[in-house]
């Protein structure tokens, strides 16, 4: 029995598994080993399930199963005022509450053509780039953990993350679920001394990155494990709608910060790191390089931060005119969009999130086929998913 016959129609993978044949002899029965990895599995980053068929250790079929964290985010938001959904967006991608807030605020502001004051825009950029640091550093930590390191890189990442979370806590009151942005600006201004502290943290970050790179980037085991594993071709990436660092690791230059230039991103010169091969190592390195660019943006934004109000002329009751809007930003994981349909009342008629995690996850089977089961774990780690966003 060859594998081609067992691939179920309808989900034709674009990558052919390596040819192999099961031994069939008289009196000897052989079967593919079906393993259901997850929903409780140490490496699936939450409650995600991969139904894997293994030939020995080689993945011959992989079926992702979602929905273990479906929390009705969109439905709840349609029963709630526009502002009421803001804290819920925190819980979408729980690493990046600030960028989630921003994407939602952006969509809302587009709906009623709201002008955001200069200072608020700058603070948003600062917060978003800090979030990018948090997300990427955690991703790299978890990724190396999936490779089998016993938590050390992850704990170094956590150590640095705590410093940034302290900044978030100082500004917004909460470590993870910041709920900091509002339609038309921010909930409160930066506290006194915040900028100084932030500058300290940002200045110390490159040293940490140096050390981190020394620990990981040249490590032969990591090189061997990640290079040429899970190669994502640019054509497939574009066809599947992949965004974010994963797309750029495949060599496609597409960064919404450049394309849309939302907020005040057109004022900061920064570079977009590009991968060439599109394998796990590229995805890992692109994120490390992106952190260095984020630090540049952060420094500029902190230097140019103007004085002024932090809240625009937002109406007290947010009641947008009937219509639809799509607001998107470059989240740390990719294009995070909010699609809102208003019927003129104070609640959205339709509220839809375009989660980068879910879209990026769609190519998982293509990436994993033909690799070992250990690679499937690594590839999943390099895709960077957060189940809160995938299942919503």
């Amino acid at each position, binding site marked *: 029995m060859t594998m081609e016959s067992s691939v179920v129609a309808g989900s034709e993978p674009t990558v052919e598994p390596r040819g192999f044949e099961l031994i069939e002899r008289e009196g000897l029965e052989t079967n593919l080993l079906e393993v259901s990895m997850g*929903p409780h599995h140490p490496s699936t980053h*939450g409650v995600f399930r991969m139904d894997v068929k293994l030939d020995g250790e080689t993945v011959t079929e992989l079926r992702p199963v979602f929905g273990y964290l479906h*929390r009705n*985010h969109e439905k709840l938001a349609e029963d709630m005022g526009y502002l009421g959904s803001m804290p819920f967006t925190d819980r979408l991608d*729980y*690493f990046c509450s600030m960028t989630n807030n921003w994407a939602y605020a952006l969509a809302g502001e587009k709906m009623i053509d709201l002008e955001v004051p200069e200072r608020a825009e700058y603070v948003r950029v600062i917060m978003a780039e800090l979030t990018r640091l948090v997300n990427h550093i955690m991703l790299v930590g978890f990724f190396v953990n999936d490779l089998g390191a016993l938590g050390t890189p992850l704990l170094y990442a956590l150590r640095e993350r705590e410093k940034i979370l302290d900044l978030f806590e100082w500004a917004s009151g909460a470590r993870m679920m910041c709920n900091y942005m509002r339609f038309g600006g921010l909930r409160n201004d930066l506290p006194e001394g915040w900028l100084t502290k932030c500058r300290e943290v940002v200045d110390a970050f490159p040293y940490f990155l140096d050390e981190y790179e020394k620990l990981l980037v040249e490590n032969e085991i990591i090189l061997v494990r990640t290079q040429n594993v899970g190669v994502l071709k640019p054509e497939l990436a574009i066809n599947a709608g992949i965004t974010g660092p994963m797309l750029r690791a495949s060599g496609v230059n597409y960064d919404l910060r450049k394309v849309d230039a939302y907020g005040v991103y057109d004022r900061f010169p920064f570079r977009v790191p590009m991968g060439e091969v599109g394998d796990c190592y590229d995805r890992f390195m692109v994120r490390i390089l992106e952190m260095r660019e984020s630090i540049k943006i952060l420094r500029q934004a902190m230097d140019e931060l103007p004085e002024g109000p932090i809240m625009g002329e937002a109406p007290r009751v947010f009641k947008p005119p009937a219509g639809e809007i799509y607001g998107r930003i470059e989240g740390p994981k990719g294009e995070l969009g909010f699609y809102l349909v208003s019927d003129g009342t104070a609640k959205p008629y339709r509220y839809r999130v375009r989660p980068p995690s879910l879209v990026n996850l769609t190519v998982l089977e293509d990436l994993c086929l033909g690799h070992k089961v250990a690679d499937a774990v690594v590839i999943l780690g390099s895709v960077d998913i957060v189940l809160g966003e995938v299942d919503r």
Partner: protein
Amino acid sequence: MEDPSKSTTSEAHTLSDSVDLDDATRSEMEKAGVIVSSVDWLYNWARSGSVWPLQFGLACCAIEMICSAGSRYDIARFGSEVFRPSPRQADLLIVSGTVTKKMAPQVVRIFNQMPEPKYVIAMGACAISGGPFKQGYNVLKGIDRYIPVDVYIPGCPPRPEAVLHSLMTLQKGIRRQRTLGKGSNNPAYVEGNREYPVPSFSGKDLDPPYNPEVWQPPEKRPNMPEDGCP
């Protein structure tokens, strides 16, 4: 080794019930000798000093749980940094995050797979009551409907220190347990093997909606104001 006590007196489901010993049991204990109590002390000391949690994350709270194992908070100080990936070797199930109806059977199954004595911490609003998502159609309104929860940590998500605090609360609870002797109140021994029926998810809802062995819907507040019905 795992000899469940024959005592039927105790109906203790929560650890808090074991705070007060009535005099009869106390004298009984004294008669049974110091050995029982000192062995109990040893058991409790060992169990509370080496609570190995299951490496099990559901949602947002899982990140704070990992943070509590991080270098800033360091749950290892309490001897609990050994996050075992397999439920067979874990003592503590931290239900960290939203339990959806699709996930609830698996959580119960994991609880069943854990060896006695086992403890459960419901971490975060979602695990306790469904939290902010409790109005959703797919969210279980509290994991304590299916498995007995020892400690609840409110918060959304709770700080890592709250996790440590809950661990200390759990340790206090463990130290109050009496395992041997007649007045045993350790549910792991009194109730035998706590393996609860796994609810089935039909695609719409869970069946049964709760496990009557561990949870009953609370009665309505008797002194509900007449005029203030919501």
